């Protein structure tokens, strides 16, 4: 502990005493390597470091006191609204160095396990459509934020983390510093957020090209524009009103089904008919993301991403058909699928390989692998056998994504690769 006369003020919902053991009397930039966790850093206006604490990893950001409290509160509100965002741990103020000089306040968030910053995704050789899938994920996140009335103010790939979600990605908000919660966003606010996103994304991709992490011939501008398009499509699908004649009432259900397919539940649907009753107008008023993940959660208690849930639910349906139990209560079948199929498959992964991917993602890949084997061998390969082959041939080649890099902090090569930018950049 520091011998300094600092009087720390810790604001946290459930404070971990281990917080006190971190070297708060040292400017973040000079934290010793043994305290740090080896994670790649994004582009930031502030000094950000990842630190190990009680067996988990936290992200620590040096930032002005008022802004720190404000962002902490916003992140808490976003969690309550069930928007994918990092979990705030707390704010620490009153830091001083051994000479008694005040140090900046810090905002602490929980590091999101299995999350991937975009720079890590691009510097691994991933499939060429990675950019498109990242953009799709960011469009979904932005729509969800806008639906709850959150104006981000600084949408960028750097301020987002990605988690694998079956063959796609799920995006999480990391930085809420410039954000604001409103009852409802104006079109201007949404438009501005989208424009900032477009320009930032293009800038970030151009930067990767300048650093030779991304092929020169990738069209950064087209990728940025794609976000605006994807966002527009999704926003319209979720919020637009449609009118039809009274005889076409089936379109009410069709709209609900379409929203479910997009992964949204309809919480409230406005239905109005005109005076003579010949036409009907519907408009979704409240939509909640996570249609499939909620359903899977209800049936099995598994808490997974939306597309992983979709995949798992399909497998559950297949299991139900294969065992001829369509008439049985779905939750009983789900319980058996969980204990007989899902859990044994995931458990067959040796402990030392479990940090590679999340269990649900492993299961998703297992299903892919089984399909591939079955096709190759022209027969239905049982899960057990597929799992064995997957663990032997596929999983070991995967990078360790629980905490991305398996190196010691002292060896991080990223000070050049991902330079953090001074905190006095606030002006910029």
């Amino acid at each position: 502990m520091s011998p300094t006369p600092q009087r720390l003020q810790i604001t946290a919902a459930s404070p971990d005493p281990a917080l006190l053991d971190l070297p708060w009397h040292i400017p973040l930039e000079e934290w010793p390597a043994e305290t740090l966790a080896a994670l790649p850093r994004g582009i930031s206006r502030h000094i950000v470091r990842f630190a190990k604490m009680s067996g988990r990893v936290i992200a620590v950001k040096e930032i002005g006191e008022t802004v720190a409290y404000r962002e902490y509160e916003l992140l808490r509100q976003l969690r309550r609204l069930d928007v994918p965002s990092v979990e705030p741990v707390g704010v620490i103020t009153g830091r001083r160095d051994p000479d008694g000089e005040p140090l900046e306040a810090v905002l602490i968030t929980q590091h999101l396990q299995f999350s991937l910053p975009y720079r890590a995704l691009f510097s691994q050789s991933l499939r060429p459509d990675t950019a498109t899938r990242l953009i799709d994920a960011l469009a979904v996140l932005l729509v969800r934020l806008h639906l709850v009335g959150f104006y981000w103010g600084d949408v960028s790939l750097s301020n987002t983390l990605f988690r694998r979600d079956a063959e796609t990605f799920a995006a999480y908000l990391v930085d809420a510093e410039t954000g604001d919660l409103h009852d409802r966003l104006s079109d201007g606010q949404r438009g501005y957020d989208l424009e900032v996103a477009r320009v930032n994304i293009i800038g970030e991709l151009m930067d990767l090209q300048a650093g030779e992490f991304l092929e020169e011939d990738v069209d950064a501008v087209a990728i940025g524009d794609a976000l605006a398009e994807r966002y527009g499509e999704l926003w319209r699908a979720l919020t637009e009103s449609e009118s039809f004649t009274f005889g076409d009432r089936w379109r009410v259900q069709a709209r609900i089904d379409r929203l479910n397919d997009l992964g949204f539940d309809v919480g409230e649907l406005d239905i109005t008919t005109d005076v003579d009753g010949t036409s009907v107008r519907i408009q979704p008023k409240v939509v909640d993301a996570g249609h499939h993940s909620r359903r899977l959660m209800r049936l099995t208690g598994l808490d997974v991403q939306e597309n992983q849930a979709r995949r798992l639910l399909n497998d559950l349906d297949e299991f139900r058909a294969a065992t001829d139990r369509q008439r049985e209560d779905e939750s009983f079948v789900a319980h058996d699928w969980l204990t007989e199929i899902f859990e044994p498959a995931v458990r067959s992964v040796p402990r030392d390989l479990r940090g590679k991917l999340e269990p649900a993602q492993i299961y998703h890949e297992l299903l892919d692998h089984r399909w591939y084997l079955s096709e190759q061998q022209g027969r239905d390969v049982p899960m057990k056998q597929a799992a064995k082959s997957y663990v032997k041939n596929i999983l070991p080649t995967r990078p360790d994504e629980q905490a991305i890099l398996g190196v010691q902090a002292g060896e991080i090569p990223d000070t050049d690769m991902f330079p953090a930018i001074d905190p006095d950049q606030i002006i910029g």
Partner: protein
Amino acid sequence: MATVTFDKASRVYPGTERPAVDALDLHIEDGEFLVLVGPSGCGKSTSLRMLAGLEDVNAGRILIGDRDVTDVQPKDRDIAMVFQNYALYPHMTVADNMGFALKIAGTPKAEIRQRVEEAAKILDLSQYLDRKPKALSGGQRQRVAMGRAIVRSPQVFLMDEPLSNLDAKLRVQTRTQIASLQRRLGVTTVYVTHDQTEALTMGDRIAVLKDGLLQQVGTPRDMYDTPANVFVAGFIGSPAMNIGTFPVLDGVANLGRARVAVQRSVISQFTDDDKNHVTVGFRPESLDVVPAGTPDGIPVIVNIVEELGSDAFVYGSLTNEFGHADAVHSGAGDAQVIVRVDPRQVPSKGETIYVRIREGETHLFHAGSGQRIEA
């Protein structure tokens, strides 16, 4: 470059009755640095966001130049929100960091280079254009970020409390830099702050808002010398003006034993609302310390002396012996006055000094409406 006009522009948030910005009428000249200032919740940020296109305008119009932009999307307004979301890209050169937005917009290479070079010249960054941000100092990086907005040559710069996150020293430094840069560029700028010192030191003109209503707009000198109402009088100036409301009898406002002559032309403007009272304001520097027993001398018990080197201020209480002491208030609180004293002759704590308001340096306001009364 362009003028900016708020034409009776209002913003009412859903579910509220009182407008956050109420029929704002404000014309900003081409190239002018206008500061919107007021306490929290006064509508200054909302006004700026209406101009940016981030808030809907429920009534009235907003014009940039002659163009009505009330319903135009933010990105099509040709404005730049400065100091937001700029992190520099580590692998790009300083020139690319400044010019990439132009590249996105499809501007020809030669023109980008030319505009970047011009901006770099103004920002004193010319010799760094081919370097990476890592090689720059903190201050130079800040200027690169500024350059990003400058190369776009927007019609209007918008800044919302850009200094609120800086420590006191850097705040003063950056304040001067922004003001001088703006003057060199000559781009119309609207700047929001809650800090009246920032407003006084930076703006060509200042617009003071309170409860969504424009109180007064004018040069820093106007605001200081002729505040339009009691609110502006108390808000502009540091330390704050001393303000009290007193009965007027026989052409004289009675501050207990002290008397302030009130001109006939002022009294003739009294309304029923004023109930024959007048609100008198006097700045800390409008008081002279006088010997005990001087006619119209007001006794002040010294609570604290704030010595600033070039100046010294006494924060003192009035006594009830002297009438209704709590009729007077200042930035220091009720029944408190602030007096500027000679920094080489400061009284000690607990001492009673006598002060007199210098003639012609009082500000008079309607006791009812709070509006200024001109003699």
